[in-house]
Each structure stands twice: as C-alpha cells, then as structure tokens.
C-alpha cells in the first residue's frame, strides 16, 4: 500500500529539480531525436577514406583542411 502510494505520487508530482516524468521524457525524446538525426547520416566519405588510408603499413594519413576530397593532390600543378 505504501509502495503503491509512493509510486503514484512519483508519476504526478515533480521530482528532483522540479521535473515531472513527462517533462523528463520529453527532454530525453528531443535530445535523442536531435542526436539521431546526425547518427543516421552514417560515415561521411572523408572519414571512411581517412581510416582506409591507414591500411598500408607505415602509411600516414593526409590531413585535409576544410573537408576537401582531392585525394593525393598535394603536389604542385
């Protein structure tokens, strides 16, 4: 009986920091929606290539500034 009562009051009254479970779950939902939008984009080519370049033993990754994808074009024209 006591347990039931405390559970019931838990779901309707603000908890720590004045948060109701509804608001907590709303915040959690928004947070994950924002985050998962990016996660769903997968691995951009630039990173897949970066990690792949290390396949060869002793290879050093080439740092590209600004996200350009001009592979192996660090020589002069």
């Amino acid at each position, binding site marked *: 009986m006591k347990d039931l009562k405390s559970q019931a009051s838990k779901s309707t009254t603000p908890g*720590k920091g004045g*948060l109701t479970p*509804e608001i907590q779950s*709303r915040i959690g939902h928004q*947070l994950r929606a924002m985050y998962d*939008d990016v996660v769903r984009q997968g691995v951009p080519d630039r*990173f897949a290539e970066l*990690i792949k370049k*290390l396949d060869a033993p002793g290879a050093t*990754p080439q740092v590209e500034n600004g996200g350009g994808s001009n592979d192996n074009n660090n020589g002069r024209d």
Partner: protein
Amino acid sequence: MPLTDSLRNDILAAVPSLRAFAISLSGNADRADDLVQETLLRALANIDSFQPGSNLPAWLFTILRNLFRSDYRKRRREVEDAEGNYAKTLKTQPSQNAHLEFEEFRTALDKLPQDQREALILVGASGFSYEDAASICGCAVGTIKSRVNRARSKLAALLYVDGAEDFGPDETIRAVIGGSGG
C-alpha cells in the same frame, strides 16, 4: 594495441555518434567534422595506448571532448552560425512545427553551461552510463549526475515553463505547470 581490421571497423562504427556528439558540443557542423577528423588522427596515432577490451567509444569520446575543450579556450563558440549550419546537416527537413520545436530545443541547449550540456548529451543521447560519462569528463560520478539533473531542470525551465502557453496541446504538462502553485 596494434591497428587490426576489427579495431579499424570499430573506430569506423563510432564515427556517426562522434559526429553527433561533436555537433551537439560545438553547434556547428563544419567545425564538428574538423573535430572528428582531429579525433580520428589522434586516436590512430595513439592507438598503442588503447587498452584492448576497454570501451573504445568512451576512449574516442574522451579524445574528442578534450580536443573540443582545448579548442574552446582559444575561440568562442560561433553562436550565430549554429542554427543555420546545423539545419544544413539534416537530410530531411522536418515539418514546420517539428522544425520550430527543434529550433527551440537547440537554442535552449545552447544556453546551458558547457559542463551541463556535455553531461546531458553523453548520458541522455549517446547512451553512456554515468560511470563512462564521468570517465570521459574526468570527474566524479556524482558530479555527472548533478550536472545532468541541473541541465534537465534548466531545459525544462527554458522550454516548458515560460513558453507553456504556446508550447502545444499537452494538457498534462500544462496542468502540472499551472497547478504547481496550489
């Protein structure tokens, strides 16, 4: 440990959530990708210091978080850039209402102190345990818990108290907020 194929695959698999974390921290998609790139380079260069069997995502998040921190001291966040750039990262445009709600949330998140924001994201979005989040942030578990609680309270105050009237037809939330005085 040496960079094995399986380790390389595990690093690759962590990239999407590293990007999400970086965007949440920096509020800027371009800068987030630079952070991820630096993180990967640093991780690969220091792969020998990774303990086999330990938590690889936590290790990578720690590197990214530290890079962001040291970078942050040098240049302030480009707040005015945040929303536009962030919106560009979305593949699908959310509906008008969802988009507004999303913008409000993003803006509120940006108002949190950095300590609280990162704690909330690590626990609430990345899905790390309090223990892992504490190790990523280099602080005590209790500190993480209190940061997460304060972050949630502040978000609630920003999003669901002041703007309760125009927030939407959520009777439960409105009733609770409206009835909190009596």
